[in-house]
């Protein structure tokens, strides 16, 4: 597959980021707890209290 000619610095970055060790980490268990707790549980409680 022919590759596009990218800016050398962008190319360097992409090569590095194609390796999983250089990527940021997705949400883990703790992050999901924060998301569900604040994005689902808290709204449900708020709606019950506000009624």
């Amino acid at each position: 597959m022919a590759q596009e000619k990218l800016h050398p610095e962008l190319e360097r970055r992409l090569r590095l980021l194609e390796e999983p060790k250089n990527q940021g980490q997705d949400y883990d268990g703790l992050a999901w707890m924060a998301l569900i707790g604040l994005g689902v549980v808290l709204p449900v409680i708020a709606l019950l209290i506000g009624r």
Partner: protein
Amino acid sequence: MMSDTTEAVLIEADKSAWPLLPGERTWGPWQLGISLATAAAATWCYIIGEYVGYYLNFDEGFFTLLAGSMIGMLIVALAAVPVAIRFGVDSIASSKPQFGSRGWVIPAAMQFVSIVGWNSLLLIFFAKSTRQLLLALGWIGEDSHGYLVQATVLLASALVFLFLLKGSAGVDRVAKILVAHVFVGFWMLYILVTQRWDDLQAAVPAYASTDARWNYTTGVEIGIVSLLSWWPYIGAMVRMAPSGRKAAAPIMIGMGLPVPLLSAIGIAGILVLQVSDPAEWMRTVGGPVYGVIALLFVAAANLGTAVAGVYSSSIGLRHFPAFQHLHWPTLLLISIAPVGLVGLFIPELFFANFGTFLAFIGLGFAPLCGIQIADYYLLRRGRISVRGLFEGGTGSPYRFWGGFNPAALVAMIAGVLTYLYLLNPITYASRSPYEYVTASLPTAALAGIVFALVTALVVRPAGKGGYE
């Protein structure tokens, strides 16, 4: 020690849409949370609160807005953030796997219009507050109004430009100073609630429907759409953090919570004093000194948000080939200029139609978020090609058909039609089951389902989109 060349590359990356490397993503939870809070906490909160206060009393208004805001924040956090966090990219880059190597112009246009809209609102609000206070103090006459608005708009635009000359460092620097305004906001709420509690409890919302359920749902809907409009902002900021763990709580607390909390000021203001602008009602409640404090708060809040918004839209513009190599100051000017023009020429028209603007945010960003969530979690299960985010040629996995993904286009249309069926963004007339489910949530869900179906039936069998 960092060499000059390395530092120059780092600074350049910070002002580009290039993905950031781990060593460049140095914002911890506190730094991210403060920056997000500074971006979210602005005087739009009062206007959001004002709209909720039209339909609900203080308690109902606050709790529905809290619920809606946190739901909206969760949707944005699930849509744009995972790709932004993993590869250090902004919101626009995060949308390329769904919209295609050319189709991303759709979210880019939405981002630009949304940020111009919000920032225009902030500048107009600031100009109005300044005029109110200076009039009250007797420092200006009625005839100086026009000049004052123009001067305020130009001054604020110039300050934003200067703050951002050094890229995201400007966002961080401004955030550290201006985050104090969030606490001033809570103090103002305390003043109003303690001094006017009886009035607040007795106040009746001016435009409440006879259907209590409709009012309640509308409070939630306003919260959701308000937070959906953080989509354009969030990628450029969370990409500075290294992991989802360090970003999740700061996003929900830093960017999600300040809006309902500060919007309570707007709800209280409109219910008790029929005005949501704290610079005006603080003067009514506490005299000129309180009015000055409130105005300083308005200035600080709006400036911090405008800085974050212009930075995000500038990074978004970098994806356009014509802007890729443009000098950073020129790019900043392109981002700021429309804001200044709206603030200068059509301030009243824009300000008077805030509710419609909010509904149009839901109309556009609800389906966009639904599509991204369905794609990342259901269809790709987290498998994204970072090279595909930046390569648009025939070999790119996100080339689809001519750079556009029909699944995203069809899903967007389905989402928009769903929203329009449920809630008219101009008249706020609704159809069932809006009063049970809001307009944004079914819109996001249906757009996600349509995207998944078209992808499964058409895109994937054609070997497009890098799904294999």
